[in-house]
């Protein structure tokens, strides 16, 4: 199996991790929705059966049914009857992009900034422990995966990058930090995928991750930390610009007038 053909990524597994507790249809809905947005569940992919989902999430079958109903109404999945039937992901990439752009616009910039701070902090904490605890073997495997991913297509590339980020988090040997990283990654990745059409942005993320792995191999935490900052702040800058463009599109000419009046005020 080439890493490039990955579908069952680490994120993919996290999607179906037990939620526990009863009556949490919206949690189930949110988990699957985010997975589709992040590309962990791809267009055309068949979801497990209702009973399998219920068992895996640790919720009742009616709860799963309720969540699937909601996803169906939103057009994210469709259900086919018959022998090869089941629920299938129907959101295309353009749907996913539109959905993620909607999330980006809906998220106040102050929250977006804070999400980046939280993500960066957890990633850095993981890196600090990984610099002490990870073995060269473990890191060399990651290096190989990363090198192979250079030529991967957009979706496959994102899945591999997400896998590598989680793998690096796990090398901290901390269950709590890793879980927190998985949780944040599920939240952040749908936004991060927005920049994946931009070859330069992908290159930047890829280079930063490569540098992070090398720094961890060299047990050089400050360098690993700097690579994480470079990667997160680069992505954040990209998202903030994209957000501004999107909101300018919404506001139409209004923004221009506003800018004009501002620059007029700044004049002599």
């Amino acid at each position, binding site marked *: *199996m*080439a*890493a490039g*053909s*990955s*579908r*069952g*990524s*680490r994120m*993919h*597994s*996290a999607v*179906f*991790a*037990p939620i526990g507790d009863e009556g949490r249809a919206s949690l189930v809905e949110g988990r699957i929705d985010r997975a589709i947005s992040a590309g962990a569940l791809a267009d055309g*992919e*068949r*979801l*497990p*059966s209702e009973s*399998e*989902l219920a*068992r*895996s999430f*640790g919720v009742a079958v009616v709860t799963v049914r309720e969540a699937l109903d909601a996803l169906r109404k939103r057009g994210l999945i469709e259900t086919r009857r018959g022998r090869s039937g*089941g629920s299938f992901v129907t959101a295309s990439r353009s749907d996913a992009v539109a959905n993620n752009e909607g999330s980006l616009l809906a998220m106040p910039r102050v929250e977006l900034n804070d999400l980046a701070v939280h993500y960066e902090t957890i990633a850095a904490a993981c890196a600090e*422990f990984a610099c*002490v*605890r*990870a*073995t*060269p*073997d*473990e890191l060399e*495997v990651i290096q*190989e*995966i990363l090198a192979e991913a250079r030529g991967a297509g957009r979706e496959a590339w994102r899945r591999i990058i997400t*896998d590598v980020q*989680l793998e690096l*988090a*796990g*090398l*901290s*040997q*901390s*269950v709590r930090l*890793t*879980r927190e990283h*998985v949780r944040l990654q599920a939240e952040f990745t749908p936004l991060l995928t927005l920049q994946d059409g931009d070859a330069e942005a992908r290159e930047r993320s890829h280079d930063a991750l490569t540098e992070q792995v090398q720094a961890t191999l060299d047990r050089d935490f400050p360098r690993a930390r700097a690579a994480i900052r470079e990667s997160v702040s680069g992505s954040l800058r990209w998202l903030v610009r994209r957000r501004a463009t999107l909101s300018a599109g919404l506001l139409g000419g209004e923004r221009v007038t506003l800018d004009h009046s501002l620059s007029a005020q700044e004049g002599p």
Partner: protein
Amino acid sequence: MTPRNDAAVSVTLDLVDEFFGGVFDSLASWLPTLEQQLAPVIRTGGLTGAGLASLIEADALAVIGDAWLPIYGAGFCATAEVIGSGNPLAWWQGPQRQPLLSAAIVGEQYAVDYRRLEWFRVPERTGRGHVAGPYVDYLCSNEITLTSSLPLFVDGAFVGVACADVLVSSLEATLLPAMERLENCATLVNAGGRVVVSSNPDYATGDPYRGVRPGDSLETLTEAVGERAGAVVLRSERFPLAVVVERP
């Protein structure tokens, strides 16, 4: 240096050997059945992920159900070469012994590249059993875990590994009371010198043992520790594990 047969010290290693001996006995007694079930399907090239899961489920659950061992999860991971379609990993885990869900998804391609995981890679390379970890297993248990695995061969070709997961917390419950009764601190380390369980307050699971870099061999560990007065390294003869005893 304390002699190797020091009864009080070796009691920890005995417990370790007995514990993993039990895990591997359980896996080893499963292998012949697995071979019987899988070999005919593999020879015809008709093995799928779903087929694998239904063939082995009862026996995998029996491994988890072993009364005196705290086995958290068990299953079989086939090589990509012998699985026509579906997930090569058939896995059950937890108190409810639920199947790992990705095993139930009928997809075109599957794809965690299992070859890069230690519990798959090492038996594939050496042809022998291995204890992998401790590592954060966010793929299966979502806990800090040790995975014991045994390779399966059909007509002389490697076709996959039978595995059983033990959570470090369960192993700790078995070992730590005995370790804490010793006069000095005892630490169980893996073949890379990584701490598994320790009665030394300065060590946490996952730390490299003092004096070695992560991934260093047990020989390096023995040399490094041997220079310190009163320190002993007892290596397991059956498993890639060692117990280090020294003053904190």
